[in-house]
C-alpha cells in the first residue's frame, strides 16, 4: 500500500516537475507570471484527447503535433499580447502587475473556448491501461510512461540549458536582463523563445496528464497553482529545484489522498506552500535574496 502510494506519487510528481519547469522558464526568463499556464496544459490534454478518440492517433505520436502547437501558440501569445506590455513597462513590478492581469484575462478566454468546444464534464481516454508489475506492486503502463516522459523532457531541457550556447544565453537573461544586452544578447527574442519553450513544456505536460488522469475545462487553475507552488518551492528559475519540489508535492499529495482523505490534497498542497512562504520565501533550493 505504502510502496504503491509512493510509486503513484512519484509519477504525479514527475508531471508536476515537468510543467513547473515550463513555468519557471516563463517567469524566470520572460518575467511573465502566467496565470493562464494551467489552461494551456488543459488545452493540450484536450488536443491529445481529440487526436486519440477522433483520429486514432496515439498520444505519443500526438505529442509531435501538440507540443509544436503549444510552442507556436505561446510564441504567438507572447509576441502579440505580452511583448508590448514588456516593452512599455520600465520596472519589473509594473510588468508583473500588467502580465498578471492580462494572463488572468487570457485564462478566461482559453477556458471559455474549451467550455464551448467540450463542455464542463470530466474527460479521459484509455491508453495503455495495462498493469505492469514492479517489485510486487502493479502500476498502469500509462503512468509508467508518463513518468518516463517527464524524466526525458526534464533531462533534455536541463542538458539544453547547461550544455549549449543557447542555454547559456537563456540563463544569462534570467540572471540579469538589464545587463544581457551589453554582451550582445537580444533580450526580447530570448524572452519570447523562453516563453514559447515554457508553452511547449506545458503542452507536453498536458499530453502526459491526459494519459492517466481525468481532466475538465475548468481544471486549469489547479494546475497553474500547483506549478506555481512547485516553482516557488524550488526557487524561481531553478530547474533542479523544480524537479525536487515537484516530486515532493506529488508524494505528499498521493500520501494524503491514500492515507488521510482525497478531498484534502489541495489543502495539503497549500499547507506546504504556506510553510515554505513563511519559513523560506526564496524557495527550498533558492539562494537567499539580499
Amino acid at each position: 500500500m505504502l510502496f504503491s502510494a509512493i510509486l503513484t506519487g512519484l509519477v504525479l510528481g514527475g508531471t508536476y516537475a515537468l510543467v513547473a519547469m515550463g513555468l519557471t522558464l516563463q517567469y524566470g526568463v520572460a518575467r511573465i507570471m502566467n496565470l493562464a499556464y494551467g489552461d494551456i496544459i488543459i488545452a493540450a490534454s484536450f488536443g491529445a484527447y481529440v487526436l486519440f478518440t477522433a483520429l486514432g492517433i496515439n498520444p505519443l505520436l500526438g505529442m509531435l503535433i501538440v507540443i509544436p502547437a503549444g510552442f507556436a501558440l505561446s510564441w504567438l501569445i507572447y509576441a502579440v499580447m505580452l511583448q508590448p506590455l514588456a516593452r512599455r513597462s520600465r520596472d519589473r513590478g509594473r510588468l508583473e502587475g500588467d502580465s498578471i492581469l492580462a494572463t488572468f484575462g487570457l485564462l478566461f478566454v482559453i477556458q471559455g473556448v474549451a467550455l464551448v468546444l467540450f463542455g464542463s464534464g470530466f474527460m479521459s481516454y484509455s491508453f495503455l491501461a495495462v498493469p505492469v508489475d514492479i517489485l510486487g506492486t502493479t502500476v498502469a503502463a500509462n503512468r509508467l510512461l508518463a513518468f518516463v516522459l517527464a524524466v526525458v523532457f526534464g533531462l533534455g531541457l536541463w542538458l539544453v540549458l547547461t550544455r549549449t550556447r543557447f542555454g547559456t544565453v537563456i540563463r544569462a537573461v534570467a540572471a540579469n536582463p538589464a545587463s544581457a544586452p551589453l554582451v550582445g544578447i537580444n533580450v526580447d527574442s530570448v524572452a519570447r523563445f523562453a516563453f514559447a519553450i515554457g508553452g511547449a513544456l506545458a503542452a507536453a505536460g498536458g499530453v502526459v496528464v491526459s494519459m492517466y488522469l481525468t481532466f475538465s475545462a475548468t481544471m486549469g487553475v489547479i494546475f497553474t497553482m500547483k506549478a506555481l507552488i512547485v516553482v516557488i518551492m524550488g526557487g524561481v528559475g531553478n530547474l533542479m529545484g523544480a524537479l525536487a519540489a515537484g516530486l515532493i508535492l506529488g508524494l505528499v499529495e498521493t500520501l494524503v489522498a491514500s492515507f488521510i482523505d482525497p478531498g484534502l490534497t489541495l489543502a495539503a498542497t497549500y499547507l506546504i506552500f504556506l510553510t515554505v512562504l513563511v519559513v523560506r520565501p526564496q524557495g527550498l533550493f533558492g539562494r537567499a535574496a539580499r
Partner: protein
Amino acid sequence: MMKLVFALAALAALALVPAFAGPYPLGLGIGILGYGVLATAWAMFSGPTRYISLATVAFFGLGAYTVAVLADMLPYPLVLLVAAFVGLVVALIVGLATLRLAGIYFVIFTFGLTELVRQLVTYYEVNVTRTLGRYVFLPLGPEHIYWQLLALLAATLAIAFWVSRARIGLALRVIGDDPVVASHLGIRITRTKLTLFSISCVIMTLAGAIQAPRWTYIEPSIVFNPTTSFLVVIMALLGGPNRLFGPLLGAVPLFLLFEWLSANFPNHYSIILGLLFIAIVFVLPNGVLAAGDSLWSRLTRREARP
C-alpha cells in the same frame, strides 16, 4: 455638511426604489449594489497598496455558505455575525502568511485561495454534514436583500471615507508608494495591511451572506464562481481604485454590460469577458493600476490650476 445632507438624501431616495421597481429592475439593483460593495471593499485595500487580490469570491462564497449552513439553527442577525467572524479569521490567516512578503506571493496565493476554500467547504459538507447542496429558506424577499445591501454599501463607503481621512489611510498610501520609507517613518507595515485587508474581507463576506437567500439552492460551485473575483477587479480598476466613488462608478456600467452579455451570449460569456479584460490592460497606456489615478489627477489638477 452639505455633502452629508446630499448623501443622506441620495440614500433615502435609493431606499425607496423597491416601492416602485418591478422584480427585474430590482434584481438589477441588487446586482449593482452587490458588486458596488465588493468593488469598493476591494479597492479599499488593493487601491493604495497595489496588492491585487484575486480572492474576492472566496470571501463572498464563505459568507453565502455560512448563511446556508446556519440559517435554520440561529437567528438571522447572529448568522450574519458568525459569517463576518468566519471571514475575519480566514482573512487573518491569509494576511499573516502572505502580507509580510512581496506582492507577487499575495497575488498567487489569493489566485488559488478560491479553489482551496471551495474544496475545503466541499470536504466539510461531504464528510461532516453529508449534504453537498443546500436549500436556503429565509423569510426575506428581494426588497429586504436590497435594503440590507444598500445599508452595507453605505457603511462600506463611510468606512472607505473614514480610512481616506484617517492616519491608517495615509499609512496605506505611504506603504503603496514605498514600503522602505514607510518602515523608516515608524509605520507598522504588516499590522496596517492586515487591518485594512481584514476590514475589506469582512465586508466581502457580508456581501455574500446577505445575497445567499437569493439563490434558494446553494452549492460550492455556484457561490465560489471565479468570474466574480475577476469582475470586481475590472470594475474597481476601471472606475479608479483610489477614489471614494470610483469603484462604484465602475461597477454600475460594467455590471449592466456583463448582465447583457451573459443574457445574449451565454456560451461565449467568459471568452468575451477575457478578451475585454485583455483589451483594458492594453488600452490604458500607463498600466491598469495607474490609469484610474492619472485620469483623475489630470482632471482635478486642471481644475486646481486654471
